């Protein structure tokens, strides 16, 4: 157990925070319900069955004041009670503050027993107010509460940041301008003792007022100048006003602009989405400059400086008697606040500490020096309860009903359910024997919820509940696909040939959708039917030959169908989607003509265009001949024999296909397609070993080359990429997939390519080759100047420059000089 208190709480009028001293450093706990923000709005909301503290309560503060309470700190130590309509009861400021402290306890994730704490109070608090704050701490479950004045806490944060364990004797100001309140205190240190000598404040001044000013004094006049409104300000500010919702939009935008102005000299505010009295759509962008903003807030800032001057006069001091002004509170981020205070007082404004958390940090430093009282041990309720839950573990609904049955004593206990992504918080509710809650689900994801039980001081009670997991993903009731779904593309490694790429993997659960964009490798001349692009979707393993798989969707776009000529290199966007009943939709969008071609294929109907079948059969026949020849040449008589047996069958299919007319309506085409597929599968299996051997050889060669280049010229990143690939070697070899091994070779080849482009020898050779082809280049003047620059780069051994020059020269080569690949599909990947 720790001997010192270590925990510090800034119990602020508008925002609170909790921090802990851990081995010389301060940890500020973030709000688990508010996306990692370090602060908690000091607002409490009551509903019949639950209490909410913080941001969610704050949202309702203005509109539901009978059930939501804020700014109760000002009433600490008074007999005032806040009537809460929703629970038909009243709450004291102490009880409300205790709720805030209890909520802060839920931020702590260290597992510590929270029994002692330092809580900060304003310099203006008298004994009764101070005791009331202590009482709030006790009500929240602390056994020991030590108070500390806020300006002293801020000063301690500063002193510790500066590593000055003891500040020099002297005095300074703490200027605290927050979201809704302003305080200034004169601090003095004498004989090692820090004291607040005097203070002033304004309970109704802060950052929120500045946002209001931007809207009222800057934006509304500008909107009214441009558009016709007779009473825009009232229509916006009145709760029943026509533009009340717009007022809050403007406030949000004004706040964003204010934050931007802390870093930039101007900010844009977009005003749109409503009509003026003449029916004109309001759409304007208003620029607010930092100096315009400064002018708006100047009277308020000058007002705070007047308060400082009052303090100085009362204490017979001149600004020069002060060491500095320590700036605290979120609004001191505004550069003008800092500069104006500095300008008028002529002493440095010190902005070195984080103004939003300084008080909590100072409290934690102070807590580290205060010993924990020994004796009164935490009288924590040791409750043992068991929770039995009931809910659907998979759901496609927007909400899922969760219910639980509790065994054990539930009196005085409460619970809270939160979603792991931070999107849902039930609030703290009373625990009963049976509880139920509608849990909202995020679509297409696994939703985790946690149910936490607290005692009446918000200490966590251990229970036996497991995390609540509800799958709202697609894979709940959809059926898996029995085979891979692939797309036929041009094979750039084997010009004139095609290959398959995987679109949806076998066993993926329907529905499925995939979209990708690729450049076309051929153009489509408008009205020319000879030009076409083919999208051929097949079912069957993606590692097979295209001819071996079953066609399930086929879309052909010809020059006849396009609204303008489509250039080679322009993009085609292909979308494949398959419904739960396995209807396949192919959509192809041509960027250049802004045209979409779409067709849905029903799994019950086969799609075998005869023309395409003929082409495939012819190709397969050629392929078989080549394979037989190759196997014979390599004296692989076993393979050659197997393939020759297929030859006869192939010939029969070829003849039958040739004799089919393009408008044949019989089932013959399907029979032939099946036969063709079987032959292709057999060719595939007979030649697979050969292909695997070939890609393995290529892999080993490129690997050796890469290793050598890495030794000579590789960097750490390239080495890591290489080692990662090699580490998986046995795994991808074991797949026995030529494509997979090829893919890895390509990855290594790309490392080789990168290194080459840095080596002088390669760059020089490439430059010499470009020089030889200089006469062919498109722009002779530019080519000459690049060649001159290249010669100079070689002379001066500026290889980086030579690399740029080479790229420039290659770009000057005529497109016709590039190798024209024969393509069949129209695109490749």
């Amino acid at each position, binding site marked *: 157990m720790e001997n010192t208190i270590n925990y510090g709480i800034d119990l602020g009028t508008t925002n609170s925070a909790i921090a802990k001293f851990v081995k010389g450093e301060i940890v500020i706990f973030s709000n688990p319900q508010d996306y990692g923000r370090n602060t908690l709005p000091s607002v409490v909301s009551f509903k019949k069955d639950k209490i909410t503290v913080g941001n969610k309560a704050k*949202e309702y503060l203005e509109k539901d004041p009978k059930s939501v309470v804020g700014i109760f700190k000002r009433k600490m130590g008074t007999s005032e009670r806040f009537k809460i309509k929703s629970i038909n009861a009243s709450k004291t400021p102490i009880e409300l503050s205790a709720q805030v402290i209890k909520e802060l306890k839920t931020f702590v994730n260290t597992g510590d027993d929270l029994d002692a704490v330092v809580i900060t109070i304003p310099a203006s608090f008298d004994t009764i107010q101070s005791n009331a704050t202590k009482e709030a701490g006790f009500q929240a479950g602390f056994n020991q509460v030590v108070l500390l004045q806020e300006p002293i806490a801020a000063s301690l944060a500063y002193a510790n940041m500066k590593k000055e364990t003891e500040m020099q004797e002297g005095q300074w100001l703490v200027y605290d301008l927050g979201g809704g309140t302003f305080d200034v205190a004169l601090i003095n240190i004498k004989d090692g003792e820090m004291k607040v000598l005097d203070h002033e404040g304004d309970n109704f001044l802060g950052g929120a007022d500045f946002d209001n000013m931007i809207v009222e004094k800057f934006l509304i006049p500008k909107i009214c100048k441009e558009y016709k409104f007779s009473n825009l300000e009232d229509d916006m500010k009145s709760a029943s006003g026509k533009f009340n919702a717009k007022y809050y939009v403007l406030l949000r935008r004004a706040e964003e602009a204010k934050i931007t102005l802390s870093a930039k000299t101007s900010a844009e505010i977009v005003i749109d989405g409503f009509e003026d009295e003449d029916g004109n759509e309001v759409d304007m962008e208003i620029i607010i400059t930092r100096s315009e903003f400064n002018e708006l807030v100047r009277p308020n800032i000058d007002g705070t400086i007047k308060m400082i001057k009052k303090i100085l006069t009362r204490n017979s001091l001149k600004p020069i008697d002060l060491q500095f002004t320590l700036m605290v509170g979120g609004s001191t981020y505004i550069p003008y606040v800092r500069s104006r205070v500095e300008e008028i007082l002529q002493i440095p404004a010190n902005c070195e500490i984080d103004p939003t958390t300084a008080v909590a940090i100072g409290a934690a430093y102070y807590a580290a020096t205060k010993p924990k009282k020994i004796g009164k041990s935490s009288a924590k309720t040791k409750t043992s309860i068991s929770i039995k839950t009931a809910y659907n573990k998979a759901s496609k609904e927007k909400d899922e009903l969760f219910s639980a049955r509790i065994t054990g004593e539930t009196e005085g206990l409460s619970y809270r359910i939160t979603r792991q992504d*931070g999107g*849902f918080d039930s609030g703290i509710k009373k625990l009963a024997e049976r509880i139920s809650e509608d849990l909202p689900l995020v679509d297409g994801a696994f939703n985790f919820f946690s149910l936490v039980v607290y005692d009446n001081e918000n200490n966590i009670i*251990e229970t036996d509940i497991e995390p609540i997991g509800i799958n709202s993903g697609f894979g709940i009731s959809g059926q898996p696909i029995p085979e891979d779904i692939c797309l036929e593309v041009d094979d750039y490694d084997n010009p004139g040939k095609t290959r398959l790429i995987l679109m949806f993997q076998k066993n993926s659960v329907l529905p499925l959708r995939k979209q990708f964009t690729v450049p076309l490798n051929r153009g489509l001349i408008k009205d020319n039917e000879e030009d076409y692009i083919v999208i051929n979707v097949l079912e069957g393993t993606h590692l097979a030959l295209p001819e071996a798989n079953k066609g399930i969707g086929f879309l052909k776009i010809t020059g006849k169908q396009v609204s303008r000529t489509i250039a080679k290199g322009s993009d085609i966007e292909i979308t494949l989607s398959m419904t739960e009943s396995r209807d396949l939709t192919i959509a192809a969008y041509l960027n250049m003509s802004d045209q979409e071609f779409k067709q849905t294929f029903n799994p019950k109907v086969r799609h075998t265009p005869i023309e395409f079948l003929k082409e495939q059969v012819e190709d397969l026949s050629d392929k078989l001949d080549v394979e037989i020849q190759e196997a014979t040449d390599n004296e692989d008589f076993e393979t050659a024999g197997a393939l020759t047996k297929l030859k006869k069958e192939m010939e029969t299919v070829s003849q039958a296909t040739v004799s089919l007319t393009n408008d044949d309506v019989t089932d013959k085409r399907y029979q032939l397609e099946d036969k063709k597929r079987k032959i292709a599968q057999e060719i595939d299996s007979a030649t697979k070993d050969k292909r695997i051997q070939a890609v393995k050889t290529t892999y080993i060669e490129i690997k050796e080359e890469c290793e050598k280049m890495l030794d000579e010229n590789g960097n750490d990143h390239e080495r890591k990429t290489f080692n990662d690939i090699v580490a998986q070697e046995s795994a991808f070899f074991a797949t026995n997939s030529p494509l997979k091994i090829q893919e890895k070779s390509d990855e290594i080849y790309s490392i080789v390519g990168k290194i080459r482009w840095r080596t002088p020898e390669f760059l020089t050779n490439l430059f010499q080759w470009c020089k030889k082809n200089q006469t062919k280049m498109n722009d002779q003047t530019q080519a000459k100047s690049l060649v001159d620059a290249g010669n100079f780069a070689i002379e001066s051994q500026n290889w980086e420059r030579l690399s740029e020059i080479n790229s420039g020269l290659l770009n000057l080569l005529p497109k016709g000089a590039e190798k024209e690949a024969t393509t069949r599909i129209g695109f490749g990947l």
Partner: protein
Amino acid sequence: MRETKKATVKVPQAFLDLVNQIFEIDKKASNIKEENSIQRNINKVRGLLEVDFFKDAGLTYHNPIGESYSETRTDCEATIAGTEVDNLEITEVIKPIIFHTYTENENTIKNISQPAVVIVQAKK
């Protein structure tokens, strides 16, 4: 039990700003009467962010316009307009909910990287 640990991956603000801008364009484009060619580009950008932008992770956004609102919705930061506080719905979305999606133990996890900023009003 202890509370489920929250993911600590923080998406850089610049990415969130980018997504917010795409959302703005998306909102504006939906008001333009044309054959959805702008929408196509937006969908394309959304697709890139969702699938190809990061390794094994993606960013998606959700526009909660028209959805019901209550204080349990911590995926939105709301400002209530009008006089009523019950039976609320989202009438304006200034920023969308941004999800950071990734796969863990074969489960798709979506974490909220940015709660929506919305205006809510009582349902009419």
